[in-house]
């Protein structure tokens, strides 16, 4: 009796497995090396015909400029004139961000890095002490959802060379919510150097997913050291 019941249970289980496998069958797709094109469609008579023999420049250039992915001309105004006073060297694998990427309009130099360009590093300069070192560091802390640094903690922060001078270096993890972001990006790391002087304050801030920022730590130091005012050279 027990044996018979076991056999029935096995048969039932086998049937259910078979049914589940059969129902999953349409989801499997054969990944072959060659495939015949079987589908076609009538193109609308209103659709513009494609340009014949267009070069890559003609195919991509206008769209990249229209989308703000490429600069059409040098940016105007104060930021561009400040930018003209700086020189820097982009580390290997880093590239300038497309125009229109800066949500605050405060970035003089805006770089991107990482496999999918998810890391950001930018230079900005503010006149005077710009609220002071403590206020600026804690502004960054707030952006990462972290509590403010105490004065003691700030005093213990390491220094790094920047702009031929010394800047205060801070690095911490958190959920990043920058200017114009509706939701925080999780698992981020911020690394930044601030050099504060009476005439101006210079910021170099690197932000991105923790692993990406970690992998670019050396590149960040190289980038900071390469930033110099043109007149010094």
């Amino acid at each position: 009796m027990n044996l018979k019941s076991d056999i029935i249970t096995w048969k039932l289980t086998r049937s259910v497995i078979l049914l589940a496998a059969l129902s999953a069958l349409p989801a499997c797709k054969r990944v072959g090396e060659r495939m015949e094109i079987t589908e076609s469609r009538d193109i609308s008579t209103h659709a513009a015909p494609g340009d014949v023999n267009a070069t890559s420049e003609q195919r991509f250039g206008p769209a990249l400029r229209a989308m703000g992915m490429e600069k059409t001309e040098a940016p105007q105004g104060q930021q561009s004139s400040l930018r003209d006073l700086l020189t820097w060297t982009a580390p290997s694998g880093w590239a300038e961000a497309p125009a229109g990427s800066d949500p605050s309009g405060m970035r003089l130099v805006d770089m991107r890095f990482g496999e999918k360009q998810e890391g950001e590093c930018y230079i900005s300069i503010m006149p005077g002490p710009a609220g002071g070192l403590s206020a600026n560091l804690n502004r960054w802390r707030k952006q990462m959802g972290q509590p403010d640094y105490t004065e003691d903690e700030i005093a213990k922060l390491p220094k790094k060379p920047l702009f031929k001078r010394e800047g205060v270096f801070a690095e911490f993890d958190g959920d990043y919510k920058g200017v114009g972001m509706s939701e925080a990006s999780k698992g981020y790391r911020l690394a930044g150097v601030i050099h504060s002087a009476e005439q101006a304050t210079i910021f170099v801030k690197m932000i991105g997913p923790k692993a990406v920022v970690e992998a670019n730590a050396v590149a960040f130091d190289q980038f900071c050291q390469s930033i110099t005012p043109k007149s010094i050279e």
Partner: protein
Amino acid sequence: MKPDSPSIPVLLFRFFRSFGLATTVLTLLLIVTYLGTIEQVEHGLYESQKKYFESYFVSSIDVACCLRAMHIPYQGTFDLPIYILPGGYLLMLVLGVNMLLGGIIRLKKECVWLAKLPLRVVTGRFAELSPAPRAVGVLIAHMSIVFMLFAGLISLYFKKDGAMRLQEGQTSDEFQSFHNSVIEIERLSPAPKDGKRVSMVIDGGQYQDLVEGKGRTFTSKTLPFEVMVMNYEVNCVPRRADAQETNRTVVENFFLQPLKEELEQERNTDGAYVKVKLKDGAEKEGILWRFAGAPLSVQAGDEVWGISLNRRAWKLPFSVRLDDFKREVHPGTDKARRFTAEVTVMDRGNDLKKIITMNEPLRSRGFALFQQSFDMGQADDGSVRESSTIQVVHNPSDHWPLISCIAAGIGLLIHMVWQLVRYLRRAAKETSALKAS
């Protein structure tokens, strides 16, 4: 010999109609819905929908993301590979079968009564309606649920959802999908003599797995070459090789730079590399990108063919011309009050003036056209030219969920009234019996 146990078909029938199965499926649906909802915070609506609701089995659960969505501060990554949790698609199929066997076929008397109801009402034989079987309301509610599941299935396979972007004065009779990517190959030169342009279409499902060095060759008897598609990127942008160091393949000074995937899948701009092999053995490499201004041209003898990567286009049974676009704002602000697209619908020789505005779509021949967004650009003569993006939806089961909800409500109401009447009758009987004693 007397059979002492039911046969396998009977066991299967009992299993699929069982109340236990319904409870299990509904519990699993609750879990899947919960996980899918919280995972969309980091993975986006489209990806979560595909993974949890349009699948037979859930491939993995991003536990780290779920924890963060529940405000548990966990910064690491923890992807739990799991193939034992059924996906929404399989669960709803099983639920449909369960409802059909357990909630409809089981109620034979009610089914017969309900089937004869229209004829009896039409012929005025109301007396034959009584006595009505007691679970008619339950039957109606179960049928409504099956109908709702069926509506979901129809919507999944037949719903078309996309957008049509029109500049003022421009006419179109097709709209492009928000999500489905295709590669199209068209002969550009010489143009067809009858003016009927046709393109060959490779569906996204046939090349979207070709990431990180994978490639597949596509052929056709009517093509003078074969195309190998490789290194597909979900979100990318062409970059100039002379402006940025790269180890990626460079074609005519451009390479495809992968970008982080957007949470809103429709914002991704996909791209791929192709290698074209002509019949004489000559080869040509090229880059396809969704926002490319022109197709990749391939010279094959006297003919020029174009290869492009687009969103899937669907035809409308009528043409739409954008006559004027109006943007009204609240006085003294930039806040939108009303966007209005004045259009002409050209259908079977008739030109009809119509208005599409916020919350007031244009409905025609099973298609609904909604005002979605607008854009302002500069025309060649320097004047400002407005354009409107109109969302187009075609869903054969558009109103079925509403009908199903109403029917389920009616069914449950009938059942509740039935139960109330029974209770009141029984209470009255008990009271009179008490009085008599």
